[in-house]
Each structure stands twice: as C-alpha cells, then as structure tokens.
C-alpha cells in the first residue's frame, strides 16, 4: 500500500480538498466540506460490505445514529471529552455489528437486505423509548460544553479536523482491504459465494469481519456530527432516507472501487447543495436530482469509476 502511487494520489487529493477550508479560513467552505467528508466516510465504509462483498445494506445509518447516541450519552451524562467518546462509540458499534453479523450474515441477497431495514427500525424504536437516551425528546448539550474546547468556533474546527482524519483513515482502510488477502476473500464471496467456500474462504467469519469494519467508522462520524449539532433525536439519527442516499452515492461513483464512493459522495452532495441554493432550481431540485440519478443508473450501471475503468483500461493502474 505504501509503495502504491495510486494510494498517495488519493491521499494527496483528499488531503488537499480537506485542508482547503483550513487554509482559506472560510466557515462556509468548512460546512460544505464537513458534509462531503461525512458522506465520503459513510459511503466508503458502506462500500466495504456493498462493493467488495456484494451485500446490500439498507441499514448502514443505524451505526451512524447509534454511534452518535452512545458518544452523546458519554459526553452528556458522564462528562467525557469528545475524543474518548468518539473512539468508544466506534468500538461499540463495531462490536454490535460483529454480534449482529454472526446472526444475520447467514442470510443472503434480498433476505439480508430486508433484515438490515428491520434492524434500523428496531433500533430507532428502541432508542425512542429508552429513557437514559432521553426517549423521544433526545438529548442536547449545554452550550457551555464547547468552552472546554476553547469556545464554540474552535470546537467546530476541531470536530472538522477530526472528521478529516477519520475520512482519510476510512479511505486508507478501504484501499488496504481491497488490496489484501482478506479483500480477495470478500470479492470471491461477491462473485460466487458457494465457489468461494469450496475454495477455502472462511465465509461467515470474513463476512462478519467486513460488517464490523464497515460499522466502525459510521459510529465515530455520528459522534462528531451530533457533537457539532448540539442535540440528538431518534428521527434525525436513524433516517432510512440517508441510508438510501448513501447507497445511491456508492452506485453513482462505482461500487467495489476505492474512488467510487469518494467521487459519488462528493458529486451527489455538491449537486444537491447547488440545486438547493440555485435561484433557478431551488423549487425543483428534488425532481431534477431524481431524473439525473435515474439517467446515470440506466446508462452507467457500473458507476462513474466503473465506466472509466472499463472504457479506458489505461487508467486502471491509477484509478482504483
């Protein structure tokens, strides 16, 4: 990985884009980049399961919401600092995914996809009625909390920096998985699970590990997002809509590639952001975005990166 030119290129591009708000000091740019990096992290982590292993997960956002809740709970009720809370939340969601994976990854195809939707709804209903997490009202941080990080403005920059680091790590892990024996096992499962088992891939274990790995990062992002938000409620934490949007991003960019989720997330978010604030489209943006997505899915089913790699074999060495 460290000798791969492609990895350094990815790192340089992401770091360059991620540092641009820091260099210009622009808060608007930072907010835009915050959303993009958050979506890149969500999409890249989803890609480990969706792209490499070929398991459609509609409940990816459950780890984002639950991670946010666990981190928020530790900060709000136990006065933890943001950093240990973030790590603890990530580990907790990964552990949960590991336990869940042992059970539901015995399902394949549409049955697994349905089970993931069920998990999202079940966790949301549980949290909405779980008093330590504030029930339906959720929890909110007192504004004074931000003083511990040197004031609200600085806290936002810190959260952004942490997110940037997290996004880089996620993409790095995604890259490493793709080029490892573990990743080969996942892709063998994607192509033909039965054949993979015959060839000696330890199916259930490998799949469960992939699921746990893909749950680690959303859990941590959730804490950063809701820390910045200042409050957390079940409706915002477990939005099935966001799960589906993340799926679209991965499909748009190209599933099973490292760059696909990055490009898909950035394009999708920029497009939505533009349509939302453009005087011309702001009343029609959902219809417009929908029509555009339909066209892309119809004509370029492999996603943008997939199409690029199929059409121009030369770029395969660089664009992974």
């Amino acid at each position: 990985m460290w000798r791969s030119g492609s990895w350094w290129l990815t790192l340089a591009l992401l770091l360059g884009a991620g540092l641009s708000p820091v260099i210009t000091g622009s808060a608007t740019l930072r907010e835009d980049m915050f959303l993009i990096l958050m979506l890149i992290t969500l999409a890249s982590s989803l890609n480990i399961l969706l792209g490499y292993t070929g398991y459609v997960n509609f409940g990816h956002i459950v780890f984002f919401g639950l991670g946010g809740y666990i981190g928020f709970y530790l900060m709000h009720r136990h006065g933890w600092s943001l950093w240990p809370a973030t790590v603890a939340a990530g580990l907790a969601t990964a552990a949960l995914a590991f336990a869940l994976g042992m059970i539901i990854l015995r399902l394949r195809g549409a049955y697994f996809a349905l089970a993931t939707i069920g998990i999202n709804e079940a966790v949301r209903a549980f949290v909405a009625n779980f008093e330590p997490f504030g029930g339906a009202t959720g929890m909110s941080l007192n504004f004074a909390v931000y003083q511990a990080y040197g004031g609200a403005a600085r806290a936002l920059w810190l959260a952004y920096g942490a997110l940037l680091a997290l996004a880089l790590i996620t993409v790095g892990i995604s890259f490493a998985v793709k080029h490892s024996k573990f990743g080969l096992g996942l892709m063998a499962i994607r192509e033909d699970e039965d054949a993979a088992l015959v060839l000696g891939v330890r199916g259930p274990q490998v799949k469960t590990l992939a699921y746990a790995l893909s749950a680690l990062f959303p859990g941590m992002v959730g804490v950063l997002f809701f820390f910045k938000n200042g409050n957390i409620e079940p409706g915002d934490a477990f939005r099935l809509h966001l799960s589906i949007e993340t799926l679209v991003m991965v499909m748009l960019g190209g599933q099973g590639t490292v760059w696909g989720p990055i490009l898909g997330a950035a394009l999708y978010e920029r497009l939505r952001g533009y349509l939302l604030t453009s005087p011309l489209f702001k009343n029609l943006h959902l219809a417009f975005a929908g029509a555009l997505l339909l066209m892309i899915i119809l004509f370029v089913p492999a996603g943008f990166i997939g199409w690029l790699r199929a059409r121009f074999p030369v770029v395969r060495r660089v664009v992974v």
Partner: protein
Amino acid sequence: MGRWMKISGILVALAVLAACAPPTPPAPTATPMAPAQPQPSPTAAASPAPAVKTIVLGFTASQTGKLTKESKEQVQGLQLWLEDLKRAGGIRLPDGTTIQVELKFYDDESTKERVQQLYVKLITEDKADFLISPYSSGLADAAAVIAEQYGKLMITTGAASDSTYEKGYQHIFQIYTPSSRYLTGAIDFLKKMDPNAKRIAIVYENEKFSTDVVKAAKPYAESQGFEVVLFEGYETGTTDFGPFINKIVAANPDAIIGGGHFQDGSTLAKQLFEKKVPVKMIALLVAPAVPEFAQLGDAAVGVIGPSQWEPGAKYSPDTARAAGLPWYGPTVEEFVKAYKDKYGYEPGYHAAGGYAAGLVLQKAIEDAGSIETAKVKAALEKMDIMTFYGRIKFDTEKAHGKQIGHEMVYLQWQKDASGNLVRPIVWPEAAQAAKPLYPLSR
C-alpha cells in the same frame, strides 16, 4: 444504435453535472448601498440626504419534506411583514438613517444537516445581519447552535420547545408560547365544562415537541383531579391509527388530548370520526389551527386546537392600555385583512408568528436606534409590548430568551348557520367568540 444512445446519454448527464459542479453562490440580489451612494455635490453637506442601509434577514424554509405546510404559512407571514415595512418606507432610526430589509432564504428539506449548513452560509456568505428560525422546534434548535456560535441574534418562531432556552443561549429569542403551556388550557376547559369528566387519554406523536407538551400536560391534568387512562406515543408518519383507536376505546376516556403535527393530527382526527369513538372532547396539537384542517369536513367539527393566535383574538390598543403596555404594529383586523387580500384566505397562527417575528425585530431595531447586535439584544431583553399577536416579553434570567408574555387561545371547529366550517375561539372565557360545542355528538 444502442451504443450511441448510451454515449449521448452519458454526455448529457456529464454536461449537466459539469454545469452544476462549481459551487458558485447565487449572486446577491441587492448589495448594501450605504458607502457606494454618490454624494450629489460637496456643497450639499448642510442638508445631508438621509442615509439608507440595507440589512439582510436570513432564514431557511421547509419547501420540501414533512414540514412544508406550516413553514409556508410562516414564510408568507414574514413576507407580508416585509411588504408592510416597505410601504412604510423602512425602519427609521433616530439619527435619520432608514433601514431597508432584504429577505434571504433557502430550502432546508426539513432536515437538520441542511439547516446548519445553510445558516452558516447565510451568516458567512450572505452576511445576514439577523436571523429568523426555521419552522419546528427540532430545526430551530439546530439553527440556534449556529446562531449562538456566530453571535447572531435569532428570533425563533414556529418553535415552542422549552429545552432550547435552557441550554445557556444568549442570542435566541422566542415568539411562541413554550410547549409546556400548550395543552394546559384544554384541561382547564374540560374541567369548567364538565365536572363529571374524569378520564383523559393522551395520545401523542413520539417526537420532541409533542413529547415536551404532553410531559407537561400529564402532571397538570393529574393535579387538576383527572385520571390519565392512556398515555401512549405513536411514530412520526403514522397513517393508520386503527390499533391506537382500539386502545383508546378500550380505555373508555371522556376526552382525548395529544396529536403532533399537521399530517398525523388530521389523519388521527379523521379516523377518530370514522370509527365514531365516543368521547366528549378532542384537543389536538397544531393540525386544527392550520386552515387546511377544514378539508376534513364533518370530521373536523368539534375538534379543539391550541393556537398561538387566531383571527378572532381580542388584542387591541385598548386592552394594551388596560394592561399598561405600549401597543405596536397593525391591529388584528388590519393584519387579517392584508393577509386575506394577498393570499385569499384567513391567516392561521403560523402566519401570524412569521409576521410577529419580523415585527418584534423591527421594534427592537427602532428601540436600539442601531443595527448593532449588542444594542438590539439589549432592546429585546427590555421589550414588553402588546401587538396584534399578543403580549411579547422575554425571560432574561435562567431560561434566557424564552417567551413569558404570550398566552395561548383555544379554538374549536364548528359549523356556522349556513353550514360552513369556522373556528371560533372557545377558551379562555374572556376571548370566547362562540358557545363551545360540548359534549361531541358521536
């Protein structure tokens, strides 16, 4: 052939994407003109032309998503305020400066991440001087964090949750009566109308605002000698209340209170009517106060709703004088007429709240004689006025910015002599415009 179609499809998609990709912000529609004003002539210094300043008032509106109906009313109210202000020639400060106001808003899709992103944009890029909150407690709460972080004043309207004001914010000021006082009047009403009614069922949307309301209403009902026989939340977006209605019937209550927002509240009212649930009173949040509730027809009759304000509200310069408060802004009749002329129907309280938010800010700028945040903030803290919308006074202590002057009214959908649906105020008694329909005949 298929190949060409594919390629041209891709090209079109890419071209559209390329056209959209650069994140250029839309050009501001008006630029601040104060420094750029050309001086007519150097000798005119003896009679300086009155300076004109333009301030930007930023907010987001939920044009898509689940809150579109209520948000639209609120924005229309705000736009009407701006029109009235323009007609009056802007806000005049004591030093002769005239302040013109420009509204700047985007669609927040009824989601929090958009709200935060767009409020940062409004503050840093569009240079908004003052902010108005989005509709709903949840979104306003998300916007409040940003406003406070950047030290911008925000008037919240359409946001009633108490909790936002208990987080130590210093720049957020609430127009609505807080949610802890939303349904307490309905309980008083029931007690007055029927001393034999003892059993109340509370059925509510399981989300922030409605939960805040019923959590305050339940102990209040119990303190008034009622028995809460059912206390149960339903999911946001519920469309089939069948199971809940069965539970309600089984609990055999005298009255049902609760609800949530427009969609679920009107569905619940409709299904309660269709199943002929035998209760004497129904009081629901939000939905009955939205004019479209009339589309339910017979199912709307008898339903009571708490309202921040109603066209029949009895606030006037006379009541202000009696209370020893200064009066400000249009009278109730003037506001209702202007709104009806512009939009073709009577305003509900969401619209009035939008108008009042603008009006309160206007008054604060006038009192402060400045558009500086610190001075306007001081003016808001001192404010104690009566308007067409009712009394406005803010808490300045522990729950800074919370509304403590304004009172709720309760309306009831009834049929007038010609069979049209109307919604007169039935509570408090002092403001009663029609005889309450009690008990419901179902």
